[in-house]
């Protein structure tokens, strides 16, 4: 009585194993891609942060040296934030 069920279930398990293997590989590939994407985004975030800091420095410099009125600096920097 149990044999047909057992056979059927064994077949299903075999198929499941194969599907899982393929899923594994696909997920590994997915992880790799996502990892690269994250790293790229991190680079972009670094660049953005650098640019922001640079701009703050420039604003301060201009304001400190008096080339640009402080009001303009504040207006511009406040717009950025």
């Amino acid at each position: 009585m149990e044999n047909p069920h057992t056979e059927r279930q064994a077949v299903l398990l075999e198929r499941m194993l194969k599907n899982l293997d393929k899923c594994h590989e696909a997920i590994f590939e997915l992880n790799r891609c996502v990892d690269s994407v994250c790293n790229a985004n991190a680079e972009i975030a670094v660049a953005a942060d650098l640019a922001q800091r640079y701009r703050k420095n420039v604003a301060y410099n201009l304001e400190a040296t008096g080339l640009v009125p402080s009001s303009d600096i504040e207006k511009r920097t406040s717009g950025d934030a």
Partner: protein
Amino acid sequence: MPLPQPEPPKPLPPRWEPTRDPQDIHVPGLDTSAPVAEQIEQIEQLITIKLQNMDENFAAIHHLITTRLLPAIKRYSVASEPIREAARFWISFFQASAQVRMRMDGDLSAPDTSNDRTPTAAGDPDATVTTATTHDEADDGQSFRTAQNDLSFQPPPTSSTPLLSRSQMRAMEGPTPESSWAASIESPFSRLDREMGSLRLDEPHAAPPSASLPRFVPPKPRLQPPSQTKEFEFKDSSESSGAAYSPILRPPPTHADTTNSTTNSSTAFERPIFFPPPSSRKGKTTTPLRENIFRRNLLLSAAAPPASSATPRRAVPSPKKKNPWSAQKQWSGIVDLREQQPPEVTTYDSSDDEDALPAGMSPPVTMRFTRPSDVRLGRAPAPLAAQRVSRGFIADTARKSVGRHLQPPPSGTPGRRRPKRDSIDGSMFDPAATSSSSNASSSAAVLDLPRTPGAPNYYYSNEQDDGDDEESFWGENYPGQDPNAPPPQSGSFSDDDSDDDFAGGVPVPGSAFDSSYDHAGGAGSEATDTVFGARLAQLQQTTAPLRIHGTELLAETVDPAATDEAVPSVEQSPTPWAAGIRRPEYEFDV
């Protein structure tokens, strides 16, 4: 703009908790009233169904990942590539401007040698603000800058540091060239070298992966000319810390140096230009990374501005010791780039293939030999050409003003034999001319061509030139003459070859005149019909001679001095079109 949220997944059924009492087990969907055997059967079936669902879910997972997720991510990465490039550039830009090295999550960076980004303003408040700013940056940028000494990987170009400490050596081994952060801050040169090195990984002398990073030993101070150090300042700051290299260009050492059996790094940096294959060295091992570095150094030295070497290229051939491809295995490991040879173009051995093009020859273009304009290749003398052009212009104007029945001005001797070149111009046959009975009149007959709207009226000149090359073949047929004057008798029209017979002027293919072909239809089918359907009687009545129009285009190229034998006649032309047009009974196959 928030992305559209997908619908939440269905809640999972509660997890089955094992119980000691089998009576507490509740299987949904089970008919508890059925006998046990049936219940067992039902349970088995439920198990099978559950397994099927699981298998289906896993298959769906795999399908979704491969068909939706991965392509989307790859599309995203491809699309964001320019952004990454820009970010990389700006990072290197900021690094270079501040002469600092960026550290990202364990990266090794050079000490902040000179920070001149924010000039300190006068006054303490400003100074404090400045310092606060820098400190703020320094504090926030722990992920950006490191302490000065401990993790200093690249010695400042202006200093001459001794061997690195053990901590530095240990820290160097952490990152691998494959890490993405290394790629993020490396210069294009180092990236190029890395890519080139990947092509060399299969070489026998490639280092095992365990020794991916070479041991870095900074160059010896005694061999550092200051000019060269400054030259590589920028390059140093933009280098990836993962790439160990010698920023100093040294003069190529002698071969004896290669036999130095000291540590790899020390000797490596005493020979910074290029690392030879191991066959030419003794007891030296190198890593692909080091080779990449040296190769990059080579490139940098080759591409460096001539601050250090303003000498012109020498004409001295490189010695064998510097020729990597020399038969003798004496290559000292240094490639002399002073004599840069252009890449040899592989000459195509045309002898192998008959169809091969000779060197430097572009693929031939299949020319469409149109008839009959390109039959003659000669070039008429300028005065003759000018004369012809002028005559043609006059004829045109006269024709337009006078009408169709025009006579060419008498010039030269009447009855000149028409040169054979007339036939080459592609004029159509004049079936009327072939009739011997009407030779005398047909010579003067003008083919009264049915005028098609917009089609130019072409005349055929039956005048025959007897070889007087001074006159154009249609020189006597200008319509500017007295239209009522009898045309000069050719007389020997029939003596001409059949190819001289024309029924009409066909200047060049593709001209507007071609449209009249269709009007003519099956010309020449009847002896009394001309090409354009004009009756022979009408032809005989008309007196305006035929003249070929459009031949002024040919005038400059037609060489009246050229003999007919030199120029292939129309009937000798191999083209079927040409062969067809020579037939007196011309039939158009449109």
